[in-house]
């Protein structure tokens, strides 16, 4: 049956929209514009450490003066120094591989939960999500505990006589992958579970009735129908992992330099705000397509776009 959407008078709804809208404009959109602007600024030893500073009181001449001092130096640096390119590529590589691992590990877990008794499912889902509610930092730190030179992993491996001397686990790519998979697992499991849970069991019965083995039924019926969940999980992991900072910083070594760390170093250690901003802009440009894709997925999920 048809229904019109608005249930209140225009005046009320405008206020409901306006308050969050203004907040987001001020604290989300405007900052991005500022990042863009600073990426075109020069680095100086001053406070703030960039030039030019927009002085609206100076009127039109102030604006012209402002425009004259803009420069693409920061971007030139980005292009010329090999370090940045390698950081971007490393980030994409790590994000891609870890997302693939997350999918490989998360899918069986989600599928397993869906096939458990109905009454048990909410409990299982809560158990998967509960670590997420405890601190992210804590969980990464927990792995430091285990992976350090005189940590638990080496201890257990030596007792089992699988290795002779303590191995270096921390400060390696492997540690970073372990940390990433560990931290982002709920982000992969939850969207997958949400989609798999809604799957009509009658479809699998129909497949069996028409002669499909269990495995075939999975690949031809279940998996294709779970693709929206797969897409959501993949995007929800890949995009933030690309810009990750904490995990590579604490668990990774000097060879694991991801773009998040590079940005952090430029900003806090080198006090080079324009370059840090340029890194952020370039990262955003890189991730724009996946982000828009995710927004589209989100809207389709809540029924805004067919």
């Amino acid at each position, binding site marked *: *049956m*048809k229904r*019109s959407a608005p249930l209140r*008078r225009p005046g009320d709804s405008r206020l409901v929209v306006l308050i969050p809208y203004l907040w987001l404009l001020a604290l989300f959109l405007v900052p991005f514009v500022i990042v863009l602007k600073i990426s075109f600024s020069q680095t100086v030893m001053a406070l703030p450490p960039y030039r030019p500073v927009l002085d609206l009181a100076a009127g039109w001449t102030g604006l012209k003066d402002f425009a004259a001092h803009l420069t693409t130096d920061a971007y030139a640096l980005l292009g010329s120094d090999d370090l940045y390119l390698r950081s971007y590529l490393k980030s994409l590589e790590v994000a891609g591989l870890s997302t693939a691992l997350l999918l490989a590990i998360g899918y069986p877990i989600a599928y397993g939960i869906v096939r458990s008794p109905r009454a048990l499912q909410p409990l299982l889902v809560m158990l998967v999500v509960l670590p997420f509610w405890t601190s992210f930092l804590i969980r990464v730190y927990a792995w430091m505990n285990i992976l350090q030179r005189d940590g638990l992993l080496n201890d257990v491996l030596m007792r089992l006589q699988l290795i002779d001397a303590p191995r270096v686990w921390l400060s390696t790519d492997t540690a970073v992958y372990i940390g990433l998979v560990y931290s982002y697992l709920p982000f992969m499991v939850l969207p997958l579970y949400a989609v798999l849970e809604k799957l009509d069991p009658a479809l699998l019965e129909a497949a069996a009735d028409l002669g499909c083995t269990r495995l075939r039924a999975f690949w031809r019926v279940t998996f294709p129908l779970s693709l929206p969940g797969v897409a959501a999980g993949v995007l929800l992991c890949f995009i933030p992992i690309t810009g990750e900072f904490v995990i590579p910083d604490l668990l990774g070594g000097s060879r694991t330099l991801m773009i998040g760390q590079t940005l952090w170093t430029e900003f806090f250690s080198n006090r080079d705000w324009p370059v840090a901003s340029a890194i952020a802009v370039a990262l955003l440009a890189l991730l724009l397509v996946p982000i828009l894709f995710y927004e589209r997925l989100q809207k389709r999920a809540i029924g805004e776009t067919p």
Partner: protein
Amino acid sequence: MGEMGEPLVRFDAVSKRFGTLTAVDCLSLDIRRGEFFALLGPSGCGKTTLLRMLAGFEAPSEGRILLDGEDIGAMPPHRRPVNMMFQNYALFPHLNVEKNVGFGLRQEKVTRAEIAERVDAMLALVRLQGYGRRRVDQLSGGQKQRVALARALIKQPRVLLLDEPLAALDKKLRAETQFELMELQRRLGTSFVIVTHDQEEAMIVADRIAVMDRGRLAQVATPEELYERPNSRWVADFIGEVSLLEGRFSAPGVFQSMIGRIEVADKTAALGETAWLALRPEKIRLGMDRPAAAANAVAGTVFETGYRGDRSVHKVRLADRSLMKVAVPNTAARGERNVATGDVVWLSWPADAGVVLTQ
């Protein structure tokens, strides 16, 4: 039940469009004071949209809606003196029965004492005394429906709207509730407007029925008029069962059809133009032999028998391969069926049995 001056509700050339879909098409309709009015039609005919426009949840794309002569088109639903009983009851799950029923009064400036009093009176009226403290999820379907009714009536609206209120009930409960609703309406004197797709229900409860088809009014009349004097083949077919014979009037009262010459009492029909004769199944007599003195008689073979308990409706195939429906009351003791498929039978009816339809 004559008109006392102005109609209570008037729809004046009202249309409603949703994008490219026209749900209601230039519809004009009057609803009188104190009447039980039904909006009847198949799914998608626009009856629910019309009801919702009266309640204020949809605004008409064109036309006016008048309540007691006042244009209420711009009035938001919470200010209209009109209340609705929703199809799924829409009882507030976080409030108990008392609070649900009294909800409407709390929006007006009524004292707590008076609210309690009126809620008690209303619960007694719908025969739910003592259920005040119960929670909504503890009620049966029929009980929920009565709470929804009490909640809508307590504000003494000028019109009560009912959106397919009996759809979820089983047959026996539905029959009981239909009579309860009619009682209630008579006692209160409030105009009730009910939306239903069940024509039997509409015929039982309503004083007048508006039959709608794809956004337009097909016919507005009392149940008897609708059944005995439909104004079109569509209405004749929609209400009850009917046999339609196509033909032309060669002379006043003489209808030439595919099965022969038929005598019709109505002598006013235009000559030479295509017309249809609508015959209701219970007006046709079925016999094994040719009737001696009947205005119209035709032979046929029984194609299908439909045993319904109190009567049987048979489909009889005639010489021109058309079908006629005949209803025969099962008066013989122990329900012995004396007509079987394949039997050759004679159908007969008097000249005044049918209705001439020109559209």
